[in-house]
């Protein structure tokens, strides 16, 4: 019988370029036993979702540090809804408290702003359905 692993797609949407944070997260997720795909920088929501479908991931993790999250993340959620895709999204980065609530309301599963404990994200992912 094969083992079931949690597969995560990590993405940076928009123009923001700092990516060592995302890369560090990828390593930590790998150390936690997940299979991680990082799609790189300057991705559009369409590119990220296409990859998420083909790789049949359990969750999409979006890293955003340029303040564009109220534009890029809602668009991503919109596309997922349009195509009836049931892939949960988590987001992290420079997301102020008021926006955390707004994003959750439009359907983001959980937010882990800068400084949030990585273990929280790891536990959250572990609990996702296979």
């Amino acid at each position: 019988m094969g083992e079931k692993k949690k597969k995560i797609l990590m993405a940076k949407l928009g123009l923001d370029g700092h990516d060592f944070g995302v890369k560090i997260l990828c390593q930590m997720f790998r150390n936690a036993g997940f299979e991680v795909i990082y799609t790189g920088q300057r991705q559009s929501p369409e590119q990220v979702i296409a990859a998420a479908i083909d790789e049949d991931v359990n969750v999409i993790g979006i890293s955003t540090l340029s303040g564009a999250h109220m534009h890029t993340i809602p668009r991503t959620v919109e596309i997922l809804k349009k195509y009836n895709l049931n892939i949960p999204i988590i987001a992290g980065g420079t997301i102020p408290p008021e926006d955390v609530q707004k994003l959750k309301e439009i359907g983001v599963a959980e937010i882990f702003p800068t400084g949030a404990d990585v273990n929280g994200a790891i536990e959250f992912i572990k609990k996702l359905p296979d």
Partner: protein
Amino acid sequence: MPKNSRWLKELKEKKEKWEQTILAPALQKIGPKREQKVIGIGHLEHPVKEIYTPLDLEEIGFDYLRDVGFPGEYPFVRGSEPTKDPSKPWLIRIYAGFGTPEESNKRYKFLLEQGAEEIVVAADLPTQIGYDPDHPMSAGEVGNVGVSLASLKDMEILFKGIPLNSMRRVGILGNTIGPIALAFFIALGEKQGLSPNEYVVHIQNDSLKEYGARNTQFIPIRDSVRLATDVVQYCAEKRLDWNAINACAAHYQVAGCAAAHAFAFASAITYIDYLIEKGLHIDEFAHLFNLFTGGEPTFTGVAVIRAARRIWARLMKERYGAKDPRSMAIKLTAYTVAESTAQQPLNNIVRIAFGTQTYALAGVDYIYNASYDEGLAIPTEDAAMLSLRTQQILAWESEIPFVIDPFAGSYFVESLTAKLEKEVLHYLSEIEEMGGAIEAIERGYFQRKQVEQGLIKTIAISTGEKPHIGVNKFKINESAPIPMFRQDVEVARKRIEDIKALKRERDNDKVKQCLENIRKVAATNENIVPSVLDAVRAYATLGEICDVWRDVFGSFEFSKNY
């Protein structure tokens, strides 16, 4: 320091006696075998001894005249100037910009009233990456992390009522877009009726660190280095004593300060070699460089800066045969962010103050510090004012400006300076072995070091091994919400209108001609600045110019990035 070997022998014996009879019992009392004290983390840990004495200076072969010398004289460890006017200890800068040029103009005036001596223009990501606000890639990003700038007209609005020569200096990040940033200021100066010799401009213009860390690049690396060095060459040939380029360590600081400074030096070497290839002599342009040092706490920060001054001086003299002291006496710029947190943001006021103090003690020439809320959003006016006050209090209430290089001769700091110098040179030789900064970046060496070291740090914070107040220690459940700056949502819409209006008003034929000319020049080895300057004067947009570059040089493929 007495080199009398009998004296040293006696000192050694006395020290051992102290360790056995006084220290050991005290350590016993503290508890079972205490771990070695270290500062720093990961591979860049520095064990800290119980005490430092003249023996440590002996150990590093310390020679005051050779290793430290006098300020304003080779090797310039104690500073690039022989003395400093205590009333002008360093240049107080502030990094600012958001939304539309109109909004930023208001903020600039406020900051200047509050005592800012240099405004460093923060541009939004589309501007930094060479996209006009109406480009599809700009959606959602216009005016977010900085002001949206696309043309000379925007610059005129940005600095309306602020003559460029009313500030001690004016600056802009302008990395991959270096030549355009330069042209913006020259053309603006003309509009203000000023000749370039009447004001001083600072352009970060370190395109290599974009590829190595920050990622605002959009053309291939070697073409980007060519453009960056075109800016330096232009300033050198026009005798503009501006700060035309920076070798940046700060952006690599996740890799540890020794590695970060090595990357900066490797980048500088690459730029210098390109300029020498263009036929310039080292003394024509080396003084146009600044070293953008990185944020390390207290002693490490001071020590690495002293080491960096020594390394630069030796590099200029021994590798490049520089004769002009200006070439060898590197000026330093610094930005204090000091591990600011999103949690309990008011704590950052303290962190930033301590960080700024480190730079003051190290004799940094140009300091800008973040606002306490910078990690969350654009700073509010009050937060920005507070960061200016932090510098002003240090500059005019503290004793620091009255002493040059107070740590010189310190048993500990000189030991640490020597140690860090060794480490920086070690990394530098590894990079040279690979063929230089460009090759190292293409192989992902700079990037890997940041991730490796960053991972160690992140894990240490996650386990609590490295205390981070508010994050893993003394957490509180609810922060009193701090006032946050809110962007006007209409920014993007307005900026798109601005571009439309601009294109209606200007002479489009002239612009077309200028862009054609840039295209021709780009394909040769000629300096790109004059053609860019013509285009900027004719109100070509930043996006239009960058599109020509993308066309001629090819777009940078991110999937090929490390």
